[in-house]
């Protein structure tokens, strides 16, 4: 155990985590040069394109130190986005150290701060790594100062590397074995193994990545999942180097994978503790929780015939994504679909994109909404994840909305703009701290406002310099009302919103104006109205199109004309017909675009 090092890399998106991981794998001989596919750890195409790692993966490397000692290095990957903070905390719980990778020209960003605080709280040794020192704009001295000021750890011995050129990476490996402590754990104690990540494999079922904290895990043994209480036999053990290599056992301190014939991802949830069926441990490892979706939206196939394949696709995605929730939803406007729950907006984007790309589904989504806690007059408390499910006003005692704690880092020049945005979004300031080149802000904000367009607006008012991280705080009562949207006099359920009463008029005005912009002119005039109850508070009209006809058509080549019409038809297929009116996807998300020019 003395020669094992378990560590993660904490980095903001694009600060070079994957490139550094690739370089470490390469230097330790994990893969031959010709086998190296850039950014090995990000396996899905989607991740590669977005530059983020969605599901944690890990790799075991063997490193011969300068002192001639062979070390087992377990690099445990962490998801790099705000929506996945729980997964990050479980990855870190498996580690004894972490590399904090900061871009030498961009400096520290909020997300790294939050993850780094989690690491420090969990007692990890954090090694600062200043990356991209090969860039002309690199300013490692300033960045080192930022690390000390903002994160509060010493950057005196910060490694200066270029993952791209390989400069400084050999020295970093040496620092990893010298400065990160070996794992602690009792090989003789009852088994406690932490599930870092689980995913579904079509052939073997659920594969779990685990860190053995105490005890030893052996092939063929009977295991028990502490959260479900169910027992499973170990079919296969091993580690990723990054190729998978089978092993007879995993000892205390080691990281590897377990396959135990589990068919459902919920059978091996992230953060759960695995123990022996015959000699169970006294208590599970701390920190386990069931992840709760916080953002909900209706997803509907554009072609109603796709409903079955949509349901199958969701079931397949769910195999690998325990955070994804869904249940059937029937909308009068959009037909049959599913109400889906997500960790956050990015998670929603990723799921929708995968459904469209991997399953060739064409989907339309209603505006995302948060989960409200509604206290009814009869004392019952409901969790409402859709405006359509909001009880009639006379049955409501109180509506409570989820509040988050947001941490924002922004250069001083943009503080004013960010404060203005937070106050517009009904935020309450908790902290403001000037830290040299950046200002750290802490706010409590309604999640609903964040879900709308906060992140984009924050980036825009700070010219991209502000960074942001959040966690759920509590539910809080607020004067919230349901806003209905009517198209040519018909209420469209998928367009309804729950909004704050004080901003209802302004929001409604902006919303109908935006919809007027987004709904293309059609053969007939289209009236867009916003109403609270039976009271219409805003209205806009989409003028009728005058004509759509080709001026000329003779005996010549019809290919181009046909293509033009096919394109028109294709465009309409992306729209949903509500009554006689065709409404494009963007109009269903108009509320997200309100206030943007």
């Amino acid at each position, binding site marked *: 155990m003395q020669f094992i090092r378990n560590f993660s890399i904490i980095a903001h998106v694009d600060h070079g985590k994957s490139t550094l991981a690739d370089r470490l794998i390469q230097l330790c001989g994990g893969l031959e040069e010709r086998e190296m596919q850039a950014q090995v750890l990000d396996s899905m195409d989607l991740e590669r394109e977005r530059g983020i790692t969605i599901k944690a993966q890990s790799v075991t490397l063997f490193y011969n130190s300068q002192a001639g000692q062979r070390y087992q290095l377990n690099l445990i990957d962490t998801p790099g986005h705000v929506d996945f903070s729980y997964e990050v905390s479980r990855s870190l719980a498996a580690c004894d150290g972490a590399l904090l990778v900061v871009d030498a020209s961009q400096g520290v960003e909020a997300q790294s701060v939050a993850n780094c605080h989690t690491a420090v709280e969990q007692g990890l040794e954090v090694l600062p790594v200043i990356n991209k020192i090969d860039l002309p704009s690199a300013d490692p001295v300033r960045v080192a100062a930022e690390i000390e000021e903002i994160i509060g750890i010493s950057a005196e011995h910060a490694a200066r590397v270029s993952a791209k050129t390989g400069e400084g990476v050999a020295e970093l490996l040496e620092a990893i074995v010298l400065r990160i402590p070996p794992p602690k754990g009792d090989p003789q104690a009852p088994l406690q193994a932490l599930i870092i990540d689980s995913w579904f494999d079509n052939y073997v079922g659920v594969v779990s990545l685990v860190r053995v904290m105490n005890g030893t895990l052996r092939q063929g043994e009977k295991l028990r999942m502490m959260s479900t209480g169910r027992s499973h036999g170990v079919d296969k053990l091993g580690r990723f180097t990054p190729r998978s290599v089978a092993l007879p056992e995993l000892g205390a301190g080691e990281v590897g994978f377990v396959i135990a014939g589990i068919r459902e991802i919920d059978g091996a949830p992230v953060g759960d503790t695995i123990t022996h069926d015959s000699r169970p441990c006294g208590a599970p490892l701390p920190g386990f929780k069931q992840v709760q979706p916080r953002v909900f939206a209706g997803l509907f196939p554009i072609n109603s015939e796709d409903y079955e394949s949509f349901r199958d696709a969701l079931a397949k995605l769910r195999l690998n994504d325990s955070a994804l929730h869904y249940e059937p939803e029937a909308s009068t406007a959009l037909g049959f679909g599913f109400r889906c729950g997500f960790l956050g907006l990015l998670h929603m984007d990723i799921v929708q994109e995968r459904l469209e790309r991997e399953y060739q589904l064409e989907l339309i989504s209603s505006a995302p909404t948060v989960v409200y806690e509604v206290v009814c007059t009869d004392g019952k408390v409901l969790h409402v994840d859709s405006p359509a499910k909001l009880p009639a006003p006379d049955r409501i005692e109180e509506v409570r909305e989820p509040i988050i704690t947001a941490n924002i880092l922004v250069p001083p020049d943009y503080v004013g703009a960010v404060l203005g945005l937070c106050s517009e979004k009904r935020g309450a300031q908790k902290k403001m701290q000037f830290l040299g080149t950046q200002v750290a802000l802490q706010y409590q904000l309604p999640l609903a406002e964040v879900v709308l367009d906060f992140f984009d607006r924050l980036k825009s008012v700070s010219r991209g310099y502000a960074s942001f991280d959040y966690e759920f705080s509590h539910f809080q009562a607020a004067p919230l009302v349901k806003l209905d949207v009517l198209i040519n006099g018909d209420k469209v359920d998928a367009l309804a919103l729950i909004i704050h009463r004080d901003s209802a008029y302004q929001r409604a005005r902006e919303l109908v104006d935006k919809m007027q912009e987004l709904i293309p002119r059609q053969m007939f005039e289209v009236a867009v109205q916003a109403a609270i109850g039976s009271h219409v508070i805003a209205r806009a009209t989409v*003028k009728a199109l005058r004509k759509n006809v*080709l*001026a000329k*058509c003779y005996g*010549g080549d019809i290919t181009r004309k046909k293509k033009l019409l096919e394109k*028109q038809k294709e465009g309409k297929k992306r729209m949903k017909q509500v009554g006689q009116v065709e409404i494009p996807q963007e109009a269903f998300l108009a509320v997200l675009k309100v206030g943007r020019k």
Partner: protein
Amino acid sequence: MSGPEAQPETRPALPTAPPLTVPTLAAPPLALYLHFPWCVRKCPYCDFNSHTLHGQLPQQHYLDALVADMAAQAPLAGGREISSIFMGGGTPSLFAPEAIGRLLEALRQLVPFQPQAEITLEANPGTIERGRFAEYRAAGITRVSLGAQSFASAQLERLGRIHSSDDTRTAAAELHAAGLANFNLDLMYALPDQDLAGALEDVRAALALKPAHLSHYQLTLEPGTLFGALPPAGLPDEDLAALMQQHCQSEIAAGGYRQYEVSAYARDGAGCAHNLNYWNFGDYFGVGAGAHGKLTDQAHGTIGRTQREREPRRYLASGAQAPLALRDIPDADLPFEFMMNGLRLVDGVTSARFESRTGLPWSTVATQLTSLEARGLVERNSEYWRASTLGQRFLNDVIAAFLPPGPASAQSRGQGADRKNPEGPGA
């Protein structure tokens, strides 16, 4: 805007009940299109196969090629006589009257013409043609299509035209004098900086010249043209363009012309027989550089499209004699291609014509038609189905209903050479 409305059971029966057997594909009338690819100057809005003439016009060489081209295609006439001929371009009137006369004689030897066949020549109202209309008539031309486009000199200049409004007036007078009163004027509207009054003035100026036929088009910015790449400033918006069309339609109707197609108006009996054949999904030979043809093969029950080499030099070198390649129109595309043409006509389509010209049963399109009828886009009487007033304005939405479903339709066959719009603003 495709509505999934349920169809009430009480609707009247279709004009023709779906037949029990597959209808027989008939050999439709056969027309002949002749393309002349050169112009004195290429206009910035023109997307036809036209090329600025540099140096000497290869008049005899090209005529020989046209005759060879016709000879190669003639066996496909299947015993039919030519019902109409259209000489489009480019500018066919760059060719001298006696040359045109010789050409017609040579073609007639290869495929006989019907005795009263309409033979149209596209011409510019410029100086080249001046004084030659009587000779063209003597050469066999029965109808002339004149590219007037506008009567406002500023517009003519912006459109790159080399003639003046006075040239157009002179040409019209000469046509009347030459006994070619059966002529068409091409006119465009929605021109840069044009207002409603300007569009109406153009129409009045055109009607004053007493043409038998008027083609009144909205200026369209086509890809692959100068205007397509660099749209001119001051184009009227969609609403104004529609208003212009509406007012001009009334003005033209008041002048005694009946609209019979989206952009075509004619005095009684003066509709363009050649274009009517296109819109009625008839057959036609396409002879000349870049020319497109459509030919029905009764024996095999197929309808094919032909296309000649587009580039004039290559056409002259070898393209004219090349064996004719027929690309069959898949059955799935036939309803769309038929309706795309037929529903442009104010009098619409008949089930009998659909069946005989496509070889498909009327039931192939009945569902789409009844659905369009329920949406008020088409209407019918005992003889025809046609676009309603609303459907005429939204004809693209109407014909899109007949596009074959699925991605297969996206793989349209053929590419490239857009045939010269015979009555279009191309000369």
